[in-house]
């Protein structure tokens, strides 16, 4: 049973058991345009909630990806460095950025659910 939550910085985080997967939302991928470069964090790195964890670049924009919740990086989607287009093609699937372990359920619970994020995007 997995659960997905969202941040106001347009990241999503999906909790499966004790591991969470992080990526950027479809809305974010569309507003960035064609992604040309992704830098993912190294495995083992500890990140704090809201801390810079990855970088995504399109031709005209560069954005930092913040960790939606604190934890230790347990996996990184290295495929993105050679195929950054996956972020555009499947942002909430194959275009994931990294996985985290040790995410606190309290931090996770504070994030927006799909409905709340949907309303947030509409308000922009």
């Amino acid at each position, binding site marked *: 049973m997995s659960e997905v939550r969202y941040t106001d910085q347009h990241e999503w985080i999906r909790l499966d058991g004790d591991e969470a997967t992080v990526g950027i939302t479809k809305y974010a991928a569309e507003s960035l345009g064609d992604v*040309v*470069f992704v830098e993912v964090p190294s495995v083992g790195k500890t990140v704090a909630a809201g801390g810079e964890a990855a970088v995504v670049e399109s*031709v005209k924009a560069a954005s930092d990806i913040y960790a939606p919740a604190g934890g230790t990086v347990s996996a990184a989607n290295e495929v993105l460095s050679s195929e950054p*287009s996956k972020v555009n093609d499947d942002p909430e699937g194959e275009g994931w950025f990294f996985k985290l372990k040790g995410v606190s359920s309290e931090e996770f619970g504070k994030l927006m659910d799909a409905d709340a994020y949907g309303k947030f995007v509409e308000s922009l």
Partner: protein
Amino acid sequence: MSMNNQGRPTAIDGIDSRRRTVAPGTVAPEELTTISGDRGLDHEEKLIFELDHGATGVDIPDVQVSGDRLGGMRRAGPIGLPGLSEPEVVRHYVRLSRMNYAIDSGLYPLGSCTMKHNPRLNEKMARLPGFGDLHPLAPQSTTQGGLALIAQLMNWLEKLTGMPAVAMSPKAGAHGELCGLLAIRAAIAARGEKRTRVLVPESAHGTNPATAAFAGFTVDSVPGKPDGRVDADALKAKLGPDVAAIMLTNPNTCGLFEGEIVDIAKAVHDAGAYFYCDGANFTAIAGRVRPGDLGVDAMHINLHKTFSTPHGGGGPGAGPVVLSERLAAFAPLPLLVADGQGLRLIEDMAGAPQGAKPFGRMCAFHGQMGMFVRALAYMLSHGRDGVRQASEDAVLSANYILASLKDVMSAPFGDDGPCMHEALFDDSFLEDTGVTTLDFAKAMIDEGYHPMTMYFPLVVHGAMLIEPTESESKESVDRFIHVLRELALEAKAGKTERFAGAPRLTPRRRLDETAAARKPVLRWKKPEPAAKEAKEAAE
């Protein structure tokens, strides 16, 4: 067939040159596929590496050297440079040049870039052997004319800005910004204080926050007001004992004069901070307003904008920084002083005069001398009256464009008073047309114009920033206005054919920037089969 008064036919092979009708049995120009791949005066040009045939464009004697004095470091293999004769090299670059737009060939309305006329007298003066062939470390007794030229230019810059000192060595605007902030950093340290924050309006040029971060400060963004000026109240509220400086562009990047600037400067000084002014837009006020009277502590001057040194396809620039009394002592090396024997460069800390506390050195030698000569030639040519007139003409032309276009394009601050040397539009007039700012700009290219600055400043949506400069005649500006009006009206009328896919009449059409960034190819490499053959031949 039409005849001109010489009796010579004006039409060729049945195609009327004026009406461009296509006679039966001939090909319309756009349909013509050429055998060569070239099209009349438009030539395709290979890379210089693809033209290599082992020739040489110089005659240099073939001297052999023993290598005894090379420390065993003689190059083992070839470099891989192409070899061409002089005529081939000349043709290569002439053909390349013809693929470029230039001020000399047309109006270049790039806002914030100040593409004014580059007088050729400047070029001639910079090439006088006494300047162009002068070594930076030649004995100072043999470079007095060079030092005198720098001193004269310093005098002009100080007088025009109402500032007591100027650091000449910064090599471009961003380098000047860095120089200014390092002077501020040194001044703060000399007071025994630690200040970490620099306030930068959100409309600022990207170099401002980049420079502040580079100089070790944190950047705090200040919002703008609906009238396109910085929010002075918000700015004052952000001041505090940890604020080192503000970096404000004036006239600002929206092309507007910051009317509250004197108040802002006072508040900044009262808070113990310094006022860095980005002088990118000095061209609007030179000869009319002295930044020193506005409370500025440091300001770089882009000689390649305001004072007409050529942009050269992206440089070289020059960015001397004028400094207030409070910062003058911290100017970097070298310093220029006059003593009994004439002018002298002080090139090291120990030689610095009493009271001088140079924060360091921005670069080797003494700055962009070649640009100094050009800028001084411009200043002497204009004189103070011409500099003032040039500023006024630049402002007049921009306001004329604003007044002539704001009914068909959308000017976000068009009702907030006159603009300075550039007129800002946004993309709301293109709403629901399907045409973007980018499309609009690319359609201008087909009309024979370089586009205006697009998507900058960031504070308005789909920004289009038009700077005509003082170098355009009224006729030229009128024609430009006519073309932009027609384009705007067509877009709004739903006639979008010319926008989609523009430009069409250029050496290349829109280029795939995504592909370029995803798999960067940043240099030529010998094609694989050829590389393989070469390897086999070597073996």
